[in-house]
């Protein structure tokens, strides 16, 4: 990055040097035009636009002895424009009195031949006696008492200048006062003053300081600038401008001055630092006066005077901005009107609205800048029927053309909405009784977005496709059937005793068999037969829906023939009944074997009957 930058910079410099190669100029100056014998003259050969010129060798100059002292270079950047220069400095010592021409010098530089203007220098003889040394002394140690008034005039003077000699009333023009000083020490320079009743002069700004050539001599210049304008018409004289300062002089001569001496302001910085030990300085007050300038102030022409003219003088442009462009009736709009240009801004008044109908207009706020004046004006449209801010006019007297001129800004389109309802109501409240209520007109548009996505679900997925949904339906149906069947059974048990007895028979029989089995193992023969008899009788009664007391061998035979029981089963039943009868009277005759047979027969009979659907 850095490298790139430096390269760019280098390249730019290179380009500028190339660009300027073609406009190299040579300028020759001397520090003074008049010189006494025995003094030295400084000759500067300045090459503008380059630093790449070696010191031209100066051949013999008639009447002078030339010696090269050295170069001094300068680079200046003003507004981005780079200029460079080199000055080769020579000392010229006059050899004889008379008027001589120094130059013209011709120098070859970068393939071009540059030629300077010739300079005329007058060499006078040094005055004889005490006097002759005076000017010499004076020059070496500038003491006003010893410098002739005329010479002093050449070495320090004031020039007053103004933009133009003819000007309109109240028209601004620049006023410049330049202080020229050549090789003199000057201190305590005060701001210049001009006594006048005919002009209004503004305060001077910070002075500029530079070197300038004047009649072939190099001067240090202090420039004061300001603006002025005439306050009444007529022919007047401006000036003289007066400036007070102190001239610094050395009381005693200590050594020869060098041509490098630069007395301006701080001449002592050169050799004077050393001389400070030897000599002392004194300040002499000096009042300088400039020449006077005649000025004609012209009144503004009546002819062509515009209606809206407010006294603005100069050359202006107008720019208008309005914000906001969409308002409700009664809301403020700010008009920003900027007058730009050159001229007397004190004379610029606010640009005018062509018509103020339908607007409430407030006084503007004014901001004044250097080359512009900004007016911020608040206007309030009073009804929604207004569609634009009217045309804005600004009239002024154009001092450069000498004519009146008007700047207009086209009407600005604005949108004025209706006042909010609550406000409208407030306004119309007193008339509400008279006016019939207007039918409210509602705007129609869609309602705003939903903030949450709501219940997100899989695309194309519906509850009726869900397995658990159907499972639930099926389970509830199964449950329903179950409950219905259960209910059926309950009802049957309640209402149908035959069914109920038939249903209960095997359970009861099972219990009886278990009891008989137990008694059989315990060897209680009597009780065993009782149990067997109860079981078989109860079972048969329940099974065939008969009163249990009515079960006898005969009834069993009847049932058997009725239901079609096999003979084998009937025999077994009969045998059980017979054995039970027998055991009541002669229990002793039954051995373990017989008991087992009876028990087995009981089980077989009940098993068989349970399996048969009779």
């Amino acid at each position: 990055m850095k490298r790139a930058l430096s390269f760019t910079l280098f390249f730019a410099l290179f380009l500028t040097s190339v660009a300027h190669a073609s406009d190299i100029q040579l300028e020759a100056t001397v520090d003074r035009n008049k010189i006494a014998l025995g003094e030295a003259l400084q000759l500067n050969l300045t090459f503008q636009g380059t630093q790449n010129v070696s010191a031209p060798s100066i051949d013999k100059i008639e009447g002078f002895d030339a010696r090269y002292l050295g170069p001094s270079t300068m680079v200046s950047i003003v507004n981005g424009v780079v200029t460079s220069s080199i000055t080769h400095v020579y000392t010229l010592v006059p050899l004889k009195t008379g008027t001589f021409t120094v130059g013209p010098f011709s120098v070859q530089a970068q393939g071009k031949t540059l030629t300077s203007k010739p300079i005329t220098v007058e060499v006078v003889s040094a005055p004889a006696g005490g006097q002759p040394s005076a000017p010499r002394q004076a020059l070496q140690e500038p003491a006003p008492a010893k410098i002739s008034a005329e010479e002093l005039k050449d070495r320090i003077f004031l020039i007053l200048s103004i933009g133009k000699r003819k000007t309109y009333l109240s028209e601004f023009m620049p006023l410049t006062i330049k202080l020229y000083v050549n090789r003199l020490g000057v201190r305590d320079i005060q701001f210049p003053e001009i006594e006048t009743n005919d002009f209004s002069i503004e305060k001077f700004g910070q002075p500029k300081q530079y070197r300038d050539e004047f009649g072939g001599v190099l001067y240090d210049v202090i420039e004061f600038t300001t603006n002025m304008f005439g306050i009444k018409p007529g022919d007047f004289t401006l000036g003289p401008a007066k400036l007070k300062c102190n001239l610094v002089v050395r009381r005693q001569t200590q050594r020869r001055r060098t041509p490098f001496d630069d007395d301006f302001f701080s001449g002592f910085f050169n050799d004077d630092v050393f001389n400070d030990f030897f000599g002392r300085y004194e300040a002499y007050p000096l009042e300088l006066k400039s020449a006077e300038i005649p000025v004609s102030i012209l009144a503004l022409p009546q002819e062509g005077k515009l209606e809206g003219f407010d006294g603005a003088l100069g050359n202006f442009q107008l720019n208008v901005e309005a914000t906001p462009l969409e308002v409700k009736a009664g809301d403020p709009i700010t008009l920003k009107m900027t007058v730009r240009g050159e001229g007397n801004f004190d004379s610029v008044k606010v640009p005018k609205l062509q018509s103020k109908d339908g607007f409430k207009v407030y006084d503007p706020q004014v901001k004044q800048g250097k080359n512009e004046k900004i007016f911020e004006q608040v206007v309030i449209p009073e009804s929604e029927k207004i569609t634009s801010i009217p045309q804005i006019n600004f009239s002024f007297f154009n001092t450069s053309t000498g004519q009146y001129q008007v700047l207009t800004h086209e009407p600005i389109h604005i949108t004025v909405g209706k006042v909010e309802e609550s406000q409208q109501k407030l306004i119309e409240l007193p008339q509400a009784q008279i006016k019939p209520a207007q039918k409210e007109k509602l705007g129609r548009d869609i309602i705003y977005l939903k903030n949450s996505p709501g219940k997100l679900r899989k695309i194309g997925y519906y509850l009726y496709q869900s397995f658990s949904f159907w499972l639930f339906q099926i389970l509830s149906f199964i449950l329903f059937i179950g409950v219905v069947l259960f209910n059926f059974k309950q009802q049957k048990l309640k209402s149908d005793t035959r069914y109920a007895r038939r249903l209960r028979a095997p359970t009861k029989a099972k219990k009886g068999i278990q009891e008989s089995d137990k008694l059989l193992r315990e060897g209680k023969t009597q009780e065993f037969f009782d149990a067997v008899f109860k079981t078989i009788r109860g079972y048969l009664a329940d099974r065939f829906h008969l009163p249990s007391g009515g079960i006898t061998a005969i009834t069993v035979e009847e049932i058997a023939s009725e239901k079609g029981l096999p003979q084998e089963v009937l025999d077994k039943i009969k045998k059980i009944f017979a054995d039970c009868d027998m055991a009541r009277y002669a229990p002793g005759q039954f051995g373990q074997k017989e008991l087992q047979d009876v028990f087995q027969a009981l089980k077989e009979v009940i098993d068989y009957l349970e399996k048969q659907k009779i």
Partner: protein
Amino acid sequence: MKVRSRLSKIFVLAIFFLPFFVKISFASNIQDAGAFNRANVYYEQANYDEAIKQYDGILKSGWESGNLYYNLGNCYFKKGELGKAILNYEKARRFIPLDKDLESNYEHARSLIQGAEITSKKSFLSRMLSSVFEKFTVDSLTILLSILYILILIIVLLGFFFRQFKKQALVFSIILGLFFIVSLVGLKGQVSSFNKEAIIVVEQIDAKFEPMEKATTYFTLYEGMKVEVAESRDNWHKVKRQDNKSGWVENSTLAIF
């Protein structure tokens, strides 16, 4: 006593199973919620295209909701695409038919449809039924059917257990049974309308007598109109307008939903 305890067992069971289908809601995906909010922000900035992109992203990830279609409808409405706006409002109506905002936007959008209003030629009964069932989603109809079914079973059971109320139970279950059948018809109608209804998404299209370009124009359909798709053939759909006029239009002119 015994009977009562059995009955209470049934209720317990029913309550146990109820959440199974009443609460079939899916925890919304956090990512999708993010996209949804982003889309809303884009909408606020009037960047409707980007908002639509975000909403479509959620749809592409396989999730949908009434609010989503509603917002999408708003985007298209603001973009000036009336057909797609109505299409999305229609889709949203399948999920949130009772939403007032949706109803208002839907009505407003429909009021902007060009062309003369077409009066329906359906019978009073079917119009009344459809206006009732419009207020139900498929899922709520499913749940309604399920509830009716369970109620019928319970009432039949009560008739068995309490024989003295046998007659009332019978009458009641018959009424419920009728409701059940009507709802079933409604559900059937709704489900069968899936991918059979369509919205015209081009400004204006002529419906032809035959599925070819040179065929004679029968009638004109305007953007946002709702039609029934009766038949499809290559690039053509046979659509039926509400006044029972049928004609052929090209695929690209409508969006089936």
